């Protein structure tokens, strides 16, 4: 018994000593005896900036957005591979969509004109594909309503199309899929695109007791921003769906190139925001050209990203230590590009404060330590 008592005593002493080791007091620091400089913290304001909005191909998105409000309108385009379908004997024709974000929107479905072929990877509001504009911005469709939906169910959206021989023939041979146009309203809904297996858009041809199902072969949504034209040299907007991009440049030439960047926070004060979701991501890319314009190229891979919580965040903060270290060390500072990420994810927008209350970059740096000898 005595033996175990002794063991317990030793163990208790060791645990007690271990707690003492957690202390972080500066004992012995004076003995270091190395020459050290104090850290320097400085604040930089942008010396150059540029903001623009642009149509962006959204065909690769996982979710299709449909709806409109005072600022945005988003339409959906869906094409089915109907080359092999038999149009005689059709007793019912249904389209099935799976909503992700359910909102009670109203929309109308039209067939897309045969002459207006569109490509999923490059279709945008004002063009069917690269180099081929629509006849009318927003998609070319026959002015023939094939379906009008007044309410959406939360789990799936199923609606019927006409089964007249004329429409079936148009659908198979004389159109390039269907376009979904939102009616007036203030809401947006999202649907699973064909990238989401088992939840992709479908069309079902029923022949009495049998049926054939076709999954979407192409789908995309096209977004237009209505009456939203930022001043390129004053405003600082970031957005997705209809992307707004802001480029900023900070002149950090005053920082010696042999220092270690210990702190580099880019602070973006938020003036207002709009988003279909509670949160969305904002990314930073390195600019590769020396001048700012809509044609300025930037790195494919984003350098950093952070999540923005619209309800609570009034500042967007990025840790740019590695980037600033790179600027300082290599003298290749062409600036940064800010945008929502990914740009094809739903619709969101942030307007940043400008002027005195606008973005700033706070940098702290130290000189590297001296060697032991």
């Amino acid at each position: 018994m005595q033996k175990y008592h002794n063991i317990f005593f030793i163990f208790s002493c060791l645990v007690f000593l271990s707690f003492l080791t957690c202390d972080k007091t500066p004992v012995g620091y004076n003995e270091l005896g190395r020459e050290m400089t104090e850290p320097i913290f400085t604040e930089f304001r942008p010396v150059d900036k540029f903001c623009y909005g642009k149509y962006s191909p959204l065909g690769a998105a996982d979710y299709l957005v449909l709806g409109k409000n005072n600022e945005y309108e988003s339409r959906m385009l869906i094409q089915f591979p109907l080359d092999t379908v038999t149009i005689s004997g059709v007793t019912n024709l249904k389209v099935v969509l799976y909503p992700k974000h359910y909102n009670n929107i109203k929309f109308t479905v039209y067939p897309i004109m045969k002459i207006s072929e569109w490509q999923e990877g490059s279709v945008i509001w004002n063009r069917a594909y690269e180099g081929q504009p629509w006849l009318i911005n927003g998609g070319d469709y026959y002015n023939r309503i094939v379906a009008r939906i007044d309410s959406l169910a939360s789990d799936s959206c199923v609606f019927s199309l006409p089964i007249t021989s004329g429409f079936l023939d148009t659908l198979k041979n004389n159109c390039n899929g269907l376009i979904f146009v939102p009616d007036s309203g203030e809401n947006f809904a999202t649907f699973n695109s064909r990238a989401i297996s088992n939840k992709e858009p479908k069309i079902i041809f029923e022949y009495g007791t049998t049926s054939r199902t076709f999954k979407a072969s192409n789908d995309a949504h096209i977004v237009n921003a209505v009456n939203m034209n930022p001043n390129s040299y004053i405003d600082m907007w970031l957005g997705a769906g209809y992307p707004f991009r802001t480029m900023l440049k900070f002149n950090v030439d005053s920082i010696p190139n042999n220092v270690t960047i210990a702190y580099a926070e880019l602070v973006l004060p938020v003036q207002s925001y709009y988003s279909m979701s509670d949160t969305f991501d904002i990314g930073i890319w390195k600019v590769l050209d020396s001048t700012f314009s809509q044609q300025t190229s930037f790195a494919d891979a984003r350098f950093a990203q952070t999540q923005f919580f619209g309800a609570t965040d009034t500042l967007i903060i990025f840790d740019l230590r590695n980037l600033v270290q790179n600027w300082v060390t290599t003298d290749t500072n062409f600036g940064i590009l800010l945008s929502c990420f990914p740009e094809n994810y739903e619709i969101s927008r942030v307007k940043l404060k400008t002027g005195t209350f606008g973005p700033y970059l706070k940098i702290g740096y130290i000189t590297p330590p001296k060697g032991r000898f």
Partner: protein
Amino acid sequence: MNMRNINPKLQIPNPKQYQNSNSKIYYKFLDLVIGICLVLSVSILGFPQSGFGQSFFSMRGFGEEVLYTDAVSGSLGGLVSLSRENPAYPITLNKTSFYANVLSGFVYGQDSTAKRMIYDIRPIMVQGKIPLPYQSRFGLKISEIFNQNFNIYSDSLLFSGYWTRRHIIGKGGIYQLGANLSKSFFNNKLSIGGEYLRLFGQGLEQWYFEVLNGNYITLDSVVNAYSAHHLKFGISSDISFIKFALSAEDFLPGLINCKVMSHNSIVDSVVGLKFDMPYGIGLGIIVDKLPQTKFYLDIFYRNWSKATINNLPISYVQNSTKISLGVEHWLTDYSSIRVGLRYYTTYLLDHTNTQIKEIALTGGSSFMIPKFGYLDYSLEIIQRNGKETKETIGRLNLSLSYEEIWKKRTRRWGY
């Protein structure tokens, strides 16, 4: 010489006799093993947040000098000439022997404003020796000679509204790997030995700079790689009840390669920095007049004022002297207790140019492990003082010794 290896009374015991006469030792041994397991388990599992470090002075000079490595020496005040650091030790060797040492310790540091404890555990020496014909023996050794483990924090300081703190961790040190050869003369009354050791090692300093607003941590590193040659010479004698040992050592000029790494690139480097460490001499005396008790005196001096870096004297070093006194009392043929005292003026000056000195009270014992060898331990309570910074060190040194006689195989013709 000083310890069991030359005690003529010591023979390989009959295990039965051992069990009968020393059964209590088993229990003591069991207690010790459990204690060691606890120490090691707490060391390994319980200190993820704690700092590793041997001394709050280790960031100066070459670090903390390791003059002795084994627990027997440690328990007798820290012997140098009367220990395996002397290549002429022991005078006789009729067994193949292996030794391994682990050193652990708590260092409680304090200065005028703060107190802090750091902890360290590390292997410190592995050595093997084999007897050769003509009363000679050959050994190989790897051991630590300078320790550069440290772990210090700066105060939290406010700059432009930002709280910052430095945290600097040192790891590594200078080690030596070498071979020694010695021979006994005059019917094992005198032994002479020499040792060549190649110095190598690397000290890594990790300089963390913390900006507490936002919890940003930046890391810079300082790496020093060392190489040099170390020569030792020793004499041991067993002529009368007063036995003595002499040791002398010197270094050939060595090289240091330094580099400072920041943001994953080398921002400063020095290749081939020459350094010359000074010679050291030691004298040890054993008084073996009483039947079961021996008295030890060991003095070691190193002429640090001759040390240079790039042929320039080093400003923060001073000649060092260590004086150790010890008493060893054999309780049984296989177990002894030891106590010792040490006064040591180290080679380093602190930041106020005051020489760092230490006083140590030491003790220890041996336990025989049947059919294997010995487990020795030493406990040292050390007070090490600069002008402002003071350290109280509790150090545990464990030595495991394996000793065995070569088994002679008799060959019979016709079988």
